[in-house]
């Protein structure tokens, strides 16, 4: 790591979108020959910052300098040719082309307009050798694992005399061996003097490879730290924002009384797991119990929820519903057993935007009844009326397209969709993300009411405070593994959960 001039500086970057201030005077420095981790939770502004850096977004204020000269990229191509290359999580290459071609397409070596395949292959081999990757450059990219594809993407990025390499969550779908190889390449490139900006959600990886860390929270800069001077716990605190949470928690009511956990559990997952999604875990949920899932973004929270709903199929372990072993092949089975699921991805997996509020609300119940047994209009009106009132959905007109509603109200419509089916277990994945504070408290209150009424709830949230306030039991996930389950009594607070997230099961002892 050179201590002198940074190769790239971003100073006082601000960027707003309608209704959101995504970045608020954020600074970032990258030095030649360092791996720099960019950390932050959902909505912290990481993606926006990268998009500003690579010229996808312009800035409202602030400057970017590269090698001391102020730059303002108008697009990824311009950034790339200036030496700032980006490799995204979803490898943006063409799997139908050969490895060599993926590295060089758009700037193939040519003679008289004809692509020189031999030359291209030779150069591709040389470049990959630099990354310690010995593969057939003639083979189709799609025939290789995602890890190799990622490395090929990096090869493409560094071939253009890259000074700065941005790796946006490159490891999220790699296994341990693949990650190790990626890290070896990263270290080598670092030693060659390239500045690497590394975005990831895995704490271990940050400590394994990063020299320095910049933490963002809610679009603001929390700080820049040397990795070895920042303990994991402090990092988690800085990402989640501990000081703030402690204050907030005072007005909340921790759920002291524990629901009756005797008898056969409603849902009993035994060593349930799915390769490259989440390691096998065991979890029981009883009637009337609120189970919170805590963990950082990408820790496997959503994957657990999807397995319990049958949205993804488990390839390991067993699930029992009221003691009966049940194979969840599709959501239909889960719904039939009284499970409901609100996805965190409201737009892509929740609402049907063109349909009206009413239609979106009755969709799940209608699906369960089958199309031959339509819900009578009067019954529809009753149900919709009741939930529009109960959840105070605005506008209260059930016939407007749901796309016209605000995020919070769309979320309430989705809640209503499941409440209408009268589920015994409701899985809520980030139900309060991206909605205003009023709607947020209403949803929290609703969850408590439902649980008092005997419904079990699996509550997933990035905000510990919310999880603590609502849950009887909290399962903590870390790097795709369920590392602890804590009964939410007085001994449990945000501090303790953060310690578990930071240190894993070793800190808490054996998971229950």
């Amino acid at each position, binding site marked *: 790591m050179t201590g002198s001039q940074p190769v790239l500086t971003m100073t006082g970057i601000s960027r707003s*979108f*309608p*209704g*959101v201030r*995504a970045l608020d005077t954020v600074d970032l420095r990258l030095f030649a020959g360092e791996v720099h981790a960019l950390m*932050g939770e*959902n*909505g*912290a*502004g*990481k*993606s*926006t910052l990268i998009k500003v850096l690579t010229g996808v977004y312009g800035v409202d204020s602030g400057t970017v300098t590269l090698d001391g000269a102020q730059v303002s990229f108008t697009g990824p191509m311009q950034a790339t040719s200036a030496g700032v290359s980006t490799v995204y999580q979803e490898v943006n290459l063409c799997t139908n082309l050969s490895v060599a071609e993926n590295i060089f397409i758009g700037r193939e070596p040519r003679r008289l307009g004809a692509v020189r395949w031999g030359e291209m292959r030779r150069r591709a081999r040389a470049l990959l050798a630099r990354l310690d990757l010995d593969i057939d450059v003639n083979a189709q990219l799609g025939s290789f694992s995602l890890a190799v594809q990622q490395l090929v993407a990096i090869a493409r990025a560094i071939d253009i005399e890259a000074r700065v390499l941005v790796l946006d969550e490159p490891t999220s779908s790699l296994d341990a061996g693949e990650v190790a190889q990626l890290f070896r390449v990263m270290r080598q490139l670092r030693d060659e003097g390239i500045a690497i900006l590394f975005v990831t959600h895995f704490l271990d990886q940050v400590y394994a490879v990063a020299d320095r860390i910049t933490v963002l929270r809610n*679009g603001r800069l929390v700080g820049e730290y040397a990795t070895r001077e920042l303990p994991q716990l402090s990092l988690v605190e800085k990402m989640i924002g501990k000081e703030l949470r402690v204050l907030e928690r005072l007005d909340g009511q921790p759920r002291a009384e524990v629901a009756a956990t005797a008898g056969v559990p409603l849902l009993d997952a035994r060593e349930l797991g799915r390769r490259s999604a989440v390691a096998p875990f065991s979890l029981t949920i009883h009637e009337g119990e609120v189970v919170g899932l805590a963990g950082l973004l990408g820790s496997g929270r959503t994957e657990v929820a999807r397995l319990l*709903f049958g*949205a993804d199929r488990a390839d390991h372990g067993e699930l029992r519903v009221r003691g009966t072993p049940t194979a969840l092949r*599709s*959501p*239909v089975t889960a*719904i*039939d057993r009284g499970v409901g*699921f609100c*996805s965190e991805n409201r*737009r*892509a*997996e*929740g*609402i*049907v*935007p*063109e*349909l009206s509020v009413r*239609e979106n609300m*009755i*969709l*799940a119940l*209608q*699906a*369960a*009844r*089958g*199309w*031959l*047994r*339509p*819900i009578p209009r009067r019954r529809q009106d009753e149900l919709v009326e009741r939930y529009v009132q109960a959840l105070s959905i605005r506008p209260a007109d059930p016939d407007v397209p749901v796309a016209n509603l605000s995020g919070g109200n769309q979320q309430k419509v989705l809640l209503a*969709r499941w409440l209408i089916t009268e589920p015994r277990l409701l899985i809520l994945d980030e139900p309060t*993300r*991206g909605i205003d504070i009023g709607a947020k408290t209403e949803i929290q209150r609703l969850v408590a009411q439902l649980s008092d009424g005997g419904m079990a709830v699996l509550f997933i949230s990035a905000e510990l405070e919310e999880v603590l306030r609502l849950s009887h039991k909290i399962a903590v996930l870390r790097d795709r593994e369920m590392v602890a389950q804590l009964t939410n009594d007085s001994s449990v607070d945000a501090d303790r959960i953060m310690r578990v997230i930071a240190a894993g099961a070793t800190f808490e002892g054996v998971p229950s």
Partner: protein
Amino acid sequence: MNSDRSGARALTGHRLFWPVVVLVVLLAANTIYRPGFLSVQLRDGHLYGSVVDIVRLSAPLILVALGMTLVIATGGIDLSVGSICAISGAIACLYISRQPDQNSLGGVLTALALALGVALVLGAWNGVLVAVIGIQPIIATLILMVAGRGLAQLVTEGQILTINSEPYKAIGVGHLLTLPLAIVIALAVALLIAAVTRRTALGLIVESVGGNARASRLAGIRSARITFLVYVISAACAAVAGFMMTANVSSADGNAAGLWVELDAILAVVIGGTSLAGGRFSLGGTILGALLIQTLTTTVYAMNISPQTSLLFKAVVVIAVCLVQAPGFRARFVRRRAPAVAAVTAGEQPKEQVPA
């Protein structure tokens, strides 16, 4: 004043506004060219007139387009309807031609049932390819589009199969209660489909699958069954249209019957405001679209322009309607003023930056 303007905008912004305008203009042009155009007479207890003719001639297209509407609403497409028209028409005619008494009602009904049965099997074939094997609809139905013409010719043995059956002929040119029977049939099928989709939850579920397939799956909809079903319905509609086409001329031509009807049907659906991407569908809009296409053809005939040249006008209409409905075109040319564009980008960006 202000509300007037917004009312006017709501009107022009309605998805069927432009199709209706074009239809009215066409009718007006015809009336100017031939003042008696709009008049309808009652002769021998039957309604006659150019307008009645237009509706009668558009009946097969309406039928095919109604089935196509459901397929397109699920986000699919059915290219094989023309072939299915030809096959079902050919089978019905073949069966009748083999009857000792071609005028026997029982024989005709058996022929219809037989041909309809075959069409249902062909629809099921399409449905299996799309819903079970998971082949792209446009590719899956292309197979039957190509092979189906051959099958139809196989049935007729390459001949134009002429029959002389009054009951069968009635499907195309007969009358019922002063109205041409074809119109009555098209109306009945339209009402049946409307009832099946809107009186049950089929319409809602089709729109849900086409509008957001992932969300529909998570809401517990078994979309494979629904997808399968719409291809079967589409084939059934095509079969009835095939009867009508062959009955019109009392003969079955495996090569020519229903030629290009799939393209006209898709066009009618698109003009009717159903998006090719799937989602909300409008049966009324589709019928309007089919009427518009037939009016266009009839107008061209009436103006003594060569019938094939009507394709030129059709091309213009296709492009115009698609452009007016295309978001890309709207953003560029219609309402150059900022708000519309800003609203689009505003909708997109917060979504992008959520996973920050």
